[in-house]
């Protein structure tokens, strides 16, 4: 039988311990050993950003990190982004504005966007593009994603904001 490794780490603000084959990536440990399937896989080689999670507040590609390296760290996945039943402002705007079409890349985008807004509460459009440039989306053309990030950022700054009319109905 295979020798499993056994580690302890903080996952979505709760301490977990888990045993798994030592060659497994954090992505595999999250999905297969901890049943958190909200983290997705897209390319298997660190290109698409779909598997992004936050480790100690920094976005990393969980397909490129060994599960073993999570020992003692703090990991946040999409399942830990809401506060209780209250969605994170980014989750609300992604859902409400059409930033999630098929939704497969959304968890990765949401966590990377959360990291961005934690560092930069008022990012410009080019700063958002730069921050999200490691995440691929095939559905949206990214535009509704930028708009959702901008809207959430404004609301997190306490502003009362809505999408511009032209983003919803097109130009006159």
């Amino acid at each position, binding site marked *: 039988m295979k020798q499993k490794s056994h580690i302890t780490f903080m996952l979505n603000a709760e301490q977990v311990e888990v045993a798994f084959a030592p060659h497994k990536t954090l992505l595999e440990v999250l999905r297969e050993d901890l049943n958190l399937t909200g983290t997705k896989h897209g390319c298997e080689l660190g290109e698409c950003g779909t598997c992004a999670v936050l480790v100690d507040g920094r976005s990393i590609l969980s397909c490129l990190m060994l599960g073993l390296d999570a020992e003692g760290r703090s990991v946040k996945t999409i399942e830990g982004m809401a506060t209780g039943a209250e969605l994170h402002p980014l989750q609300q705007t992604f859902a409400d504005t059409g930033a999630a079409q098929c939704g497969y890349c959304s968890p990765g985008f949401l966590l990377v966007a959360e990291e961005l807004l934690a560092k930069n509460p008022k990012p410009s459009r080019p700063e958002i593009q730069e921050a999200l440039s490691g995440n691929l989306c095939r559905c949206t053309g990214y535009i509704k994603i930028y708009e959702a990030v901008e809207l959430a950022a404004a609301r997190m700054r306490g502003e009362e904001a809505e*999408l511009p009319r032209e983003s919803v109905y097109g130009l006159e």
Partner: protein
Amino acid sequence: MSRNRREENDSAAPLNVIGKPFRKVDARAKCVGQTKFADDIVLPRMLSCKILRSHLPHALIKNIDTTKALALPGVLAVITGKDLPIPYGILPVSQDEHALCIDKVRFIGDPVAAVAAVDEDVAFDAMNLIEVEYEPLPTISTIEEAVLIDEPRIHDYGDSGNVHKKVSLEFGDVEEGFSEADLIREDVFFYEGNTHLPMEQHSAVAHFDSDEKITLWSSTQTPHYVHRALAKVLGLAASHIRVIATPNGGGFGGKSDPFNHEVIVCKLAMLTGRPVKVTLTREEVFYCHRGRHPVLMKIKTGVKNDGAITGMHFQTYLDGGAYGSYGVASTFYTGALQTVTYDVPRYKFQGLRAFTNKPPCGPKRGHGTPQPRYGLEVHIDKIAEQLKLDPAAMRRQHLVAPNTTTANYLRIGSMGLGACIDKVVEGSDWKNRFSDWDRDNRKLPFGKGIGIACSSYICGAGLPIYWNNMPQSGVQLRLDRQGGVCVMCGSTDIGQGSDSILAYIVAEILGIDPFDVRVVTADTDLTPVDLGSYSSRVTLMTGNAAIQAAERARELLVIAVAEKLEVPVENVSLAERRVFDVENPERGVSFAEAVVLAESKFGTIGTVGSYSPPRSPGKFKGSGVGPSPAYSYSAAVAEIDVDPDTGIVVVERVWIAHDIGKSINPMLVMGQVEGSVYMGLGEILMEEMVYRSNRNVVHKFPSMLEYKSPTTMEMCDVKTYLIEDPDPNGPFGAKEVGQGPLLPIPPAVANAVYDAVGVRIDEVPITPEKVLKALREKEKGRVGRYGPDSVPTVDWPDPLRILTPSEGGDGREMPHVAVHS
């Protein structure tokens, strides 16, 4: 009172849901990680499946030895082609696939054997222990080779040798058209193949229960067709098979065929009595493919001096890859929609699909039409230059009229292309920026350019894939006495929002909130058949079916409430979760009470609705491809920057106007337009499926790292206009938006490149290397062009000749004797 189309009635009543930017009914689950995609499904005792694929592009299978694999601890089953001998395929005319190859492999990636084991690692190890003895065969790697080389044949069916299909149709006398022309122009173009690249890899889970019923969860766009294929290949009664399409993590046409891995996991589940899952690797997704056909095109058009077309002869040559897939339909589609934008009074189409030893091509967003649309729109641009006409104005002047029938018998309803052109011309300040073909007095600096293109797409196909007289879409509605409303439909949400469209339409008609509606879709046990998420058919067809089902339920509620309130039924209205007397709105009952009244009077409340498209006026062989209940229209202007030193093309902005008929939800329409622009941008600038022809036809880069697609850094700014010209065949007047807006992007960018630096790139994608080569040719005084010069010589069959409607034709082909007499 049953009313299929809402548009003309209730026009006075304000719409409470339709046209409003509600969030999608499934959006929140997707943003919190709750949505279960196929690979997220885990069942007790589930096995993992791996599929051994051919590493040779064309070979006979001499022997397969599975002994070592079966002996590996943890392996429960190994199967090969002899376990699944029945062929299948999406089209009745191309039943040419086996779940596992039996005697021959036809491309690198063709499945040969499959393993079920306790986990993925063991399955992988076992797969590598399977020994296959091959006898390599010569390969066919290009259209030209397929046309020239008859032996060995990749398939033992098809029109000849390695030619899968030849099509030849002539509507009116095209030579007569050319004789009336002031200018005749011929061009040759090539559109390289590319793939869907959905973020989610295909995945499927099969469960065979003790009552000998099988359930398959799969990321498929077409659960109904998978259901039919499974029944055929597994030899089970269809009633014992249940297919559930999980939410698709992107489809774009790439999950529209029944796939070998779906059949394989079912067979393995039946053999082992345990659930079996397969999730393809990204590399395998490239081999599944069924993406954009590479198409070589030759276009000959006659025009008057004002740009009016007198006749067009369009030839297409498709590289189909190793199997039929949707290819026969794709071939017809490369010739079908040229006639629905600008008036083409006489039209001849010849199309050829070749078999090659590459992953099979099929439908990708726009199915068979982006390639000819690119060729046509660049060709039109060149004609405009020769005639010294403004290419926007020339297009605008010769549009097909609404409510007419084209030369090839496509019935046009609403037609908003003129309004689309006006919007993008105005928005882009076209008149002050386009060069007017005057290179010496440019309005933009050298290297900056602007280009325009238009397009059209179907809103669902007129005919189903297999011939039958049943509806293409069915909706069932159940109202329960607590006021719950459940809408059931076979449609599949692939991210485009089809689940939400059902909820919005039902909510609008029943006067409730869309989030009150429970949507159950894409489950062959629970939902009425809808043919699937392809051909941009879902909003129009499920929408009309949902309207019918909801109207029927509404009628029952109205009768019951009218009786209770003692008012005429005409006075009863539904809104804001109430059913009330319009003359005394405070007199009424809650929606839930209305259901109780109706259930008390009529029994359990359930209604159905269905939709069949109108019959096409075309009756000739081949007339099944092209007809649609409605056509959407798009126009786009691209503004670009070309660096003449590097050849790098940067698309800075796109103005796009889309004739949507009526937006069921404008925010979702905007998202589809922007996503289409994005995907068109990827196709014109970078995406390509390329193979090493001289090195065993191996795919150059079956990975996301090397297959380049646009990131946030390449995506352009998009200025969108929605044109609302309701179509009488659309639900509330709605037309499609999922595919059409992709079509004008590649040619608009190609035309802008010419405007910017004066070279024509007649081959997609427009890579920096091609731009530089064309610029160098131009510097040397030669033609500044990159692209193919000729097409293969083909022995075309005599065309089917059909008189056009304006010639008094009845949509039938003329007898051959009459033609030759």
